[in-house]
């Protein structure tokens, strides 16, 4: 089976940012995403999101360039003040050209 190697970018962040992050990553070039509800602990304790329900875990399969763009956006805009983590892995995707 022919697969394409893409970047799988995973972002976990406060629910309240969900809409904004999805809008931005779509602008940057993501063609799709998968969301799951998550809770977690990191360096910050409190967030407004307890009231807003759990955090959101966003996974998006994108090209290398788009992955870089997403990381840059998050680093520049969200890292300082919000609870957010982002990491990148490789994934072999079937029908991969659909996602670039």
């Amino acid at each position, binding site marked *: 089976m022919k697969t394409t190697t893409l970047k799988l970018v995973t972002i976990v962040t*406060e629910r*309240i940012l969900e809409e*904004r992050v999805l809008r931005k990553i779509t602008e940057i070039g993501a063609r799709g995403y998968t969301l799951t509800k998550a809770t977690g602990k990191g360096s910050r*304790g*409190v*967030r*407004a*999101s*307890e*009231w*807003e*329900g*759990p955090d959101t875990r966003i996974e998006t399969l994108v090209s290398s360039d788009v992955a870089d763009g997403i990381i840059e956006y998050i680093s520049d805009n969200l890292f*300082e*003040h*919000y609870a957010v983590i982002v990491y990148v892995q490789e994934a072999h995707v079937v029908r991969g050209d659909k996602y670039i």
Partner: protein
Amino acid sequence: MEHIGVLASNLLSPIILLFVLGILASLLKSDLKLPSPLYNGLTIYLLLAIGLKGGVELHKTPVSEFIWPALITLLLGIITPITAYNVLRRLGRFDRINASAIAAHYGSVSAVTFIVAVSFGTMNGLTSEGFMPAMVAILEVPAIVVALMIAFTREKRAGSWQEALHEVLAGRSVMLLLGGLIIGWISGPDGFEPISPFFETGFKGALALFLLEMGVITAKRLEGLKEVGGFLIAFGIIVPILHGILAIWLGNMAGLSVAGSAVLGAMVSSASYIAAPAAVRIALPEANPTLYLTASLGITFPFNITIGIPIYYAFAEWLL
């Protein structure tokens, strides 16, 4: 003496005891906890129910009767974030951002504190005006706008002012309260009748269950007490009392009954923990959530529903 009896009757009512049970369960690391969709659903139910009931009452009330209370409530929604801000800045030496973040919470309102205040009255034979839920709707938004204006006028901020405003105005609590009010007002008592068993019969029990979960949530906030310092703890008790007294006094002048003034006092004294935190998190991400959430939920909320509300009633009676 009699006041102590009333206080005790409040502290020993099942609603408050369930709140205490929630706190205890959480401190004992119990797995007791409402599933979050249920907690969510109860919030929707309670907000919608008070909106609808308020609207049905408005339908029956001549404008002349609630215009003054409404104006006064609006005024209090503008004044209280300013007093809170100044106390925090001048006496508490908070920086501008955290001061306005906290002020947004104390200017806005906690719907549950409102409901508990109404229930407390009913339990003691004092019925407040049926249109009081409309005051909750009036009180919710302006303070948040005022407080964010304070924060945004002087400097550029990391957060988004527009997004925050949308978050408040299109937020669940405004939609349900205001939507409920309008629907209740349009459909009136006859239209409301078929659905009233659902929204009235179960109301207090649903509130009781809700307070169980509020206890669990409050307990988590108590951890923040160590961090926030003595000033904020004192602030979370004294400023609500002052706001409450001011509101009762103005409410009395606006023609509200004893119970009505006391309920107005309770709501003005209360601090938002749904609409305000969401808006502040978006508009002022630099503000420290531990401060405003601990103050609002860890201090003022439990203070108000246990001791504050009896005080507001006592003051309203004394004023008469």
